[in-house]
């Protein structure tokens, strides 16, 4: 599980995340929302050590998340899917999956193909030639190759057509229910994401302004005033 205590993250003089304390169980589905600049993506990156200038503590399963050591932190069982640039365009789908799975056994490649049959069909295609939705599927599959207990996804539906959004979010729900992998989504597409998550957190100015059941957030008459 994640334990976040008094987390503050800075970019120079700018405080992006301000004294945030939270805890998450693995296996849960959590959505992190907020307007542009609210600190949600920075918060997600802090969970995997992707921000250098931080104070406070982030632990995962009792192990500290060390800032600027993403490659080590993910091996604790955290899958991280960056918002963009999350596949390797010069490599084929299969080569992408091999890079991701170099530290796990090859059987997991078959599991990734079982979860995303389209990737098997496209295994010899360059990742850079795939559509945005297909690349997002591949990015999730890459993160799954590290056998994570929890997946952190930074705006997985950004720039995708509504039909593809539904497909990507459906795949994530399936991963959670079939593999028991927890999900922490940072999303701008609030209504679509609320269908998938069970807990919602809203950030504003780097601070938590809502933390509760996703249905509670959806039911709010002044929902958009939170963003």
């Amino acid at each position, binding site marked *: 599980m994640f334990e976040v205590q008094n987390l503050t993250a800075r970019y120079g003089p700018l405080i992006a995340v301000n004294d945030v304390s939270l805890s998450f169980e693995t296996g849960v589905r959590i959505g992190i929302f907020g307007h542009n600049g609210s600190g949600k993506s920075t918060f997600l990156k802090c969970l*995997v050590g*992707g921000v250098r200038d931080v104070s406070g503590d982030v632990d995962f399963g009792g192990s500290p998340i060390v800032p600027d050591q*993403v*490659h*080590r932190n*993910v*091996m604790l069982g955290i*899958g*991280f*899917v*960056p918002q*963009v*640039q*999350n*596949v*390797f*365009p*010069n*490599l084929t789908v299969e*080569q*992408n999956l*091999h*890079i*991701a799975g*170099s*530290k796990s056994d090859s059987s997991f490649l078959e599991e990734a193909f079982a979860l995303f049959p389209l990737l098997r069909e496209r295994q010899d295609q*360059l990742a*850079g030639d795939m559509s*945005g939705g297909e*690349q997002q599927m591949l*990015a999730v599959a*890459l*993160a799954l*190759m*590290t056998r994570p207990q929890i997946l952190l996804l930074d705006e997985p539906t950004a*720039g995708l057509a509504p039909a593809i959004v539904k497909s990507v979010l459906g795949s994530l729900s399936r991963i959670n229910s079939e593999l028991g992998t927890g999900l922490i989504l940072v999303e701008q597409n609030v209504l679509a994401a609320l269908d998938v998550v069970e807990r919602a957190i809203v950030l504003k100015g780097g601070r938590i302004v809502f933390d509760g059941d996703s249905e509670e957030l959806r039911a709010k008459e002044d929902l958009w005033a939170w963003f």
Partner: protein
Amino acid sequence: MEYILTVMVLIGINVILATSFNLILGYGGLMSVAHPIFYAIGAYCSGLLAIHLQIPVPLSILMGAGIAMVLSFGVSLPSLRVSGDYLVIASIGFQLGILHVINNLEFTGAAGGLTNIPVLNEGPSRSLVFVLLIAVVAACAVLLVGWIVEGDYGRAITAMRNDEEAFSALGRNAMNIKIVLFAIGSGMAGLAGALYAHYFAYVTPEQFGIFTSAALLTMVVVGGAATTWGPLVGAVLLTTLPQAITFLGLPVSIMAPLQGVIYTTLVIFFLFARPQGLMGGTRGGGGLEAWSASAAFRARRDAE
């Protein structure tokens, strides 16, 4: 005959330099232009060890390459913190800084250069034997780089070049790959420098400046960045071309800048007309197109 053999030695040295530069810049996407300084470190260290400590020349050549390999940390460590344009600036600073030191130390010969460096071999067939030696070393350099970039490790290098953040997110350590690429590439450049010093017996600081960086960059771009044989073709072409134009009999005032004009024109031509270089294939098959594909890919994704 002696002239042709000397040109062949220069071709061999440039093949080693361009191939090793391609490993760092082409395959690794690490925008360091300080490659000639490791060429200088190999040349000076090997020459000084042989002159002042009377170390046998073959051993001093290996030691020169080893010292260049170790000092590659001077560029690989900044590359862990900065990339792209910032790494270009950091590497230029490193190159000019070391050159400034060489230029001002008495025991390196200062601006006048290091003279009386013991030669590797002597005798009536000296140049021919050296050409054969350098051909073997150059072939080994090309094959070594080709072997490194094949297979799983090569794909990991490509992935790191495509996107470091995504690479780290998969639990892969980009830092290790950068250090290895700089160490191997710089060690090979040091070896080329040591071989040069013990053939020509004389080196000067001006041989290792920004102009040499530009010449090596031209060889890689024209031949094909991130291709196995491209730097070899580029090195052969751009070593023989300046030699060939000397036969035109032009005045020195025209000949001197002409070489720079040729290099610049070739780089611009290839950037626009054939970015994959002479040996690059289709998209993803090498050259500047593969080199910059991740940047284009990111731009397209950001625009969507």
